[in-house]
């Protein structure tokens, strides 16, 4: 009997820090075994070998931040049966999208490079699903090793991995960590943010900064805002916090708009 063909895989990056591919490489004890289950056709950061063929799975990290990124993404989509966004950049732009809807690209170019917007081919950073169909999203800045390993092995067995739909607070409570929000008054974003990190920051006595992104359709941003206002944090501080990893999230953008309208009114008075 002929051996079944190994799934053809490509690992790609658009604009980002490269941390999600690095987390795959950080699976050191199982890395060689894991990669040997696939036929790797494209992996720019790890290999000079490249073959322009149809892929069973494309793992893509990074945000679409330039027209070049967008063209590359469209080509990857065309050649891939399944496209998986790995990491926050590929889902919602991550910290790169922190000032979306708040600071124009023109202003960013002027501030950092001292030149006009058309000097480079920049786009406002967005996740992949703003442009193409995405089959699965694995959150995190960076992704969790266990989660990506679980996802990849599930796919090898023909199953779709489960997506997490509950907040960091659930894992924090299961571990019995003291609540840094209620007990210490720290500006923890745990109630809004997708679990899967096993409440890493509260374990270290730190408040969640939201690096796994807001839970889709579930996060109650207005309620979190109220809690933090009651704790004595001002609106600008809280919105900055919410924006670290939520710049492309609709509720957070709406809150920003309200706040800036309010401060304009104040100035007008």
């Amino acid at each position: 009997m002929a051996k079944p063909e190994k799934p053809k895989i490509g690992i790609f990056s658009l604009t980002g820090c490269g941390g999600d591919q690095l987390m795959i490489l950080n699976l050191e004890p199982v890395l060689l075994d894991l990669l040997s289950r696939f036929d790797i056709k494209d992996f720019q950061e790890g290999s000079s070998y490249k073959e322009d063929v149809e892929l069973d799975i494309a793992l893509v990290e990074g945000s679409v931040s330039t027209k070049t990124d967008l063209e590359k993404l469209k080509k990857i989509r065309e050649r891939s049966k399944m496209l998986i966004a790995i990491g926050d950049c590929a889902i919602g732009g991550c910290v790169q999208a922190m000032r979306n809807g708040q600071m124009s690209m023109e202003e960013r170019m002027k501030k950092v490079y001292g030149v006009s917007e058309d000097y480079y081919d920049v786009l406002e950073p967005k996740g992949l699903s703003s442009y193409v169909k995405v089959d699965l999203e694995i959150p995190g800045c960076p992704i969790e090793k266990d989660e990506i390993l679980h996802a990849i092995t599930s796919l090898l067995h023909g199953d779709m991995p489960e997506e997490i739909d509950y907040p960091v607070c659930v894992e924090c409570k299961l571990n019995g960590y003291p609540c840094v929000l209620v007990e210490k008054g720290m500006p923890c974003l745990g109630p809004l943010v997708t679990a899967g990190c096993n409440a890493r920051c509260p374990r270290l006595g730190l408040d969640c900064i939201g690096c796994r992104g807001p839970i889709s359709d579930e996060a109650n941003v207005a309620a979190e805002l109220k809690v933090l206002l009651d704790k004595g944090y001002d609106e600008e501080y809280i919105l900055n916090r919410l924006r670290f990893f939520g710049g492309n999230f609709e509720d957070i953008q709406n809150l920003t708009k309200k706040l800036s309208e309010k401060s304009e009114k104040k100035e007008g008075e």
Partner: protein
Amino acid sequence: MRRVIEVEELTRVEGHGRIEVVIEGTEVKDVKMAIFEGPRFFEAFIESVHYEKVPDIMRRICAICTASHSLASIRTIENAFDVKVTEQTRILRDLLIHGEMIESHALHVFMLALPDFLGFPDAIRMASKYPEEVKAALQLKHAGNMVHNVVSGREVHGMNERVGGFSKIPSEKELKDIRAAMVSTKQTAELAVDLFAKVEIPKYAESENTLMALDPGEKYGFIGDYVLVSDGTRHPVQDYPSLTNERTVKHSHAKFSSYKGSSYMVGALSRILLNRDKLEGTAAELYEEHKDILTSRNTLMNNLAQAIELVHSVDRCIEDIDILLSNGLKNEGLVEAEPRASRGIGAVEAPRGTLYHDYTFDENGCVVKANVITPTAQNAANMEKDYRVAAERLIKEPDEKLINVFEIIARAYDPCISCSVHLTRIQK
């Protein structure tokens, strides 16, 4: 005849870069190191963010140098607010940056650079002929990541190192586990030196290099407040604008640097050559053994310098842990910062070279202005110089050969392109 030789996309490097060399007849007309990773604008985002969370954002400039960015950021803030940290914090930070060096250098030396010299497209395929070496390299990389995990909280983008100290002090057991991993992988670090010393390192890029690295003080290391230059001068890190002279160029999203009008090099080779008298133990012995080939003229020797730093870093992690354990671990909490309107500048040696952060704060401790200068942006002009030198020497060679040569040169710098594309504010 006009030839345009292009490396469309560099592989086995972090991020997205392209090389273009134009040859007309027997003359190299133009050389470009184009960095087309999207611009990332961190210096613009960070404005109005309260200092306490600034390192959490700024470390996300880069994954492979995450702790370097976070420590540079923290040191910058502490300089601005005059925060003095404890001895335990100082040693834990030293441990963290040495762990990062191991993780990053093990990845670069074995997985990214070595395949070039052993004739493979990647480490996965190299593992078919060198299975034990690749497995050992992964164990060494893992030992570096243990430091990230324990001291910083995660391999990439940790959170435990803070302004004023560490949120949670590692346990004795965690540190002993790291120590054991270091002891058992030290021979792999030595193997890296051995492998690079054995392969024929090409000389096509040989030319004068100006070197720059931080002065680590009495002992070899990666944290310091002064910059050493190979012209014999020494400067406080606050002088970085006149040392780096960054400028925007159309063909690259990374700015280009120069020192006294010429390109210069940062990274392991610069550090080893400028601080060689501070090396100790096995690393010092290995330097002595290979000093004849470790010349500042050959950029490709950066790989061998990294291998020697691997050995140094393994030994230093063991030493740091021994000191921490013999002093006894103390849950000492964070030293409070008192924010005020001020400016701070801080630097560390990232695995690929000197990294500067510079922030100005308002009276509430929120950022009003930020500037970051990364090693890869500083090296970009020197990379172009090397491509030119190699192209001139190998002008009769076919395009495929030159493409391969340019890639090997680029990789020797261990470029981190994600880092390089957020650049500095233009001084008006």
